[in-house]
Every structure is written in structure tokens, then in C-alpha cells.
């Protein structure tokens, strides 16, 4: 919790602020560890396409840069799964199962898969690494996806879908 913050501001953080700041710093720290060691900037959505090269001969998924990175990207994604599991074991928050409906997860997921790959990156690639790189391209992408997501979530809620 940020000390001394006015109550009007804290009303926008009903769950507090500490976990957000610490979590965000850790997300970037995980990326930084890999970057400082290898100069690789590891986004999270490229994994979707490089992994498809194992089961598809579509040319887009079998580009040299994808074939060269597909194995460590699998290792990276599985390590993210394991890191989150470790959080569950260490802090023992109890089980969490989302109440967001399966059609929202699947349908939204399809659009996330299309959009992040056409748009050259996701929340990690554009949001964390691209903004950190002061990239105008990333800023444009982030402003668009955050803005459109706010409108979309508001419309979905207004239609009475909960959650």
C-alpha cells in the first residue's frame, strides 16, 4: 500500500497496490534476466506460432527464426507455468478457478491469437518491452489495444454478461 495516498485515489485500488507493483517489477525482471544474458527480448505470443511449427508445415510457422527459437520458447512458456505454480505453493492462496464463461475465454482467446500475431506483439512484447524501448510502434499498439479492450469489456458488461 502506498503510504499517505489520498483516499479518493485509493478507492481505485480496492485490492491494494503492493502486489501490482511487485508483480510488475518481477515480470520485467524475468525478461531482463534472459535479455541481459542472451540479448534476446522474449515476448510471450511468438510462442503460439513457433510451437505450431511442430505440427504444421504452413510456411509462416516454419521460418528460420521460428525454427531456431521454438524449443527455448516452449521451455520459457512451461517455466512461466511453473513460476506461477511456485507462487501458489509458496504463498498458498488457495485454489482459484475463474468464473469468466468458457465462450468468453475461447472466443476472446481466438482474437488474442490473431491480433497479437498480426500486430507483432502482446502485452509483454509491446506493453513491457516495447514501451521500455520507447518504441512509437509499441505505443500506438498499446494505446489501441487498451482503449479497444476498455470499450469491449464495458459493452460486454452492459449487455448483462457476468462475468
Amino acid at each position, binding site marked *: 500500500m502506498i503510504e499517505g495516498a489520498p483516499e479518493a485515489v485509493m478507492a481505485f485500488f480496492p485490492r491494494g497496490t503492493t502486489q501490482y507493483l511487485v*508483480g510488475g517489477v518481477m515480470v*520485467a525482471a524475468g525478461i531482463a534476466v534472459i535479455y541481459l544474458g542472451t540479448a534476446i527480448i522474449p515476448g510471450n505470443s511468438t510462442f503460439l506460432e513457433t510451437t505450431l511449427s511442430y505440427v504444421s508445415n504452413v510456411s509462416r510457422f516454419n521460418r528460420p527464426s521460428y525454427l531456431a527459437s521454438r524449443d527455448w520458447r516452449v*521451455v520459457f512458456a512451461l517455466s512461466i507455468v511453473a513460476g506461477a505454480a511456485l507462487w501458489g505453493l509458496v504463498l498458498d492462496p488457495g485454489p482459484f478457478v475463474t468464473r469468466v464463461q468458457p465462450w468468453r475465454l475461447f472466443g*476472446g*482467446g481466438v482474437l488474442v491469437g*490473431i491480433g497479437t500475431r498480426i500486430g*507483432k506483439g502482446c*502485452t509483454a512484447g509491446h506493453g513491457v518491452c*516495447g514501451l*521500455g524501448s520507447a518504441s512509437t510502434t509499441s505505443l500506438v499498439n498499446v494505446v489501441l489495444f487498451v482503449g479497444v479492450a476498455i470499450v469491449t469489456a464495458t459493452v460486454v458488461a452492459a449487455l448483462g454478461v457476468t462475468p
Partner: protein
Amino acid sequence: MSRDADGSTTDRHPLFLPLVVLGGLIQGFGLAYSGMARPEVVLDFLQFDDLGLILVMGGAAVVSGLTFVVATHFLDRAPLSGDRYGRRTRSMDRNVAIGGVVFGVGWGVSGICPGAAYASLGIGNLPILWAIAGMFVGAYTQGYLRSRSQAESPHSITADD
């Protein structure tokens, strides 16, 4: 524009994969800790009920910004790959905008993005497999269509990441 380092399989340093594991563990822990692995927390942000996501993305962008500045100004080559450090830049074109809008609709509907989805699986949220399956379907669909249109008119598609 120079291509990002991609960790080619030839002559990899023995510590390469262990470092990828370490980075993934830290990021996965952070995504779970930050609440981003829960679609409800993201959807609360998108409806202005809980602005915590700004702190997550902002905090992360500040740390990654410092990392990029230090590496590109004060360090020469990465110890495990010998590659030069670069910033994450992408060419601006129509696809960046179209992709951002499509991603935004998907994120607003589902409340989940790729990295957070992997972490969500780690905290035992099995229904997130719907979202991960959807992401693969979406990634396959765009890749299939782009490969086909590229085969028809090889000069109409610009190279990207």
C-alpha cells in the same frame, strides 16, 4: 532494421536454457503475484473498478526501460550468446494498428493475454485452457491465411518480426 537475437540452436552456451528457465520462473511468479493470471482482475481494470493493471504494466515498463538503457549504453555483447544488445523496435504499418484493435477486442472479451494465460494454468485455473486453445486457433488462422496470400502475391506482404 536488424533482426532481434533469436537464440539459434547452433553453439548455444550450456547456461542458455537454464537462464531461460530462471527468467520464465520469475516472470510466471510475478504474473501470478500481480493478479494478472486472473481474468477477473484484468476485467475489473478495463471497467475502472481496480486500476492495479496500470501499476503492473507501468512498473514493468520502467524496469525494462532501465534495463534497455543500461544494456545498450554500457554493455557490449551478451555473455551467453555474443549478440549485441538492442531495443525492441518494430516497423510501423497498418498491421500494427489492425492487430492492436483485434487483440483489444479479444482481451476485453476474455480478460487474458498470452503470458498471463500460461501463468493462469500454473495457479491451477484449468478453464484457462479454453483461452490457450483459442489463442492457438487464432494464431493458426492468421498464419494460414498469411501464408496463402503470400504464396499468391509474394511481394504484397511486408516482412515483420
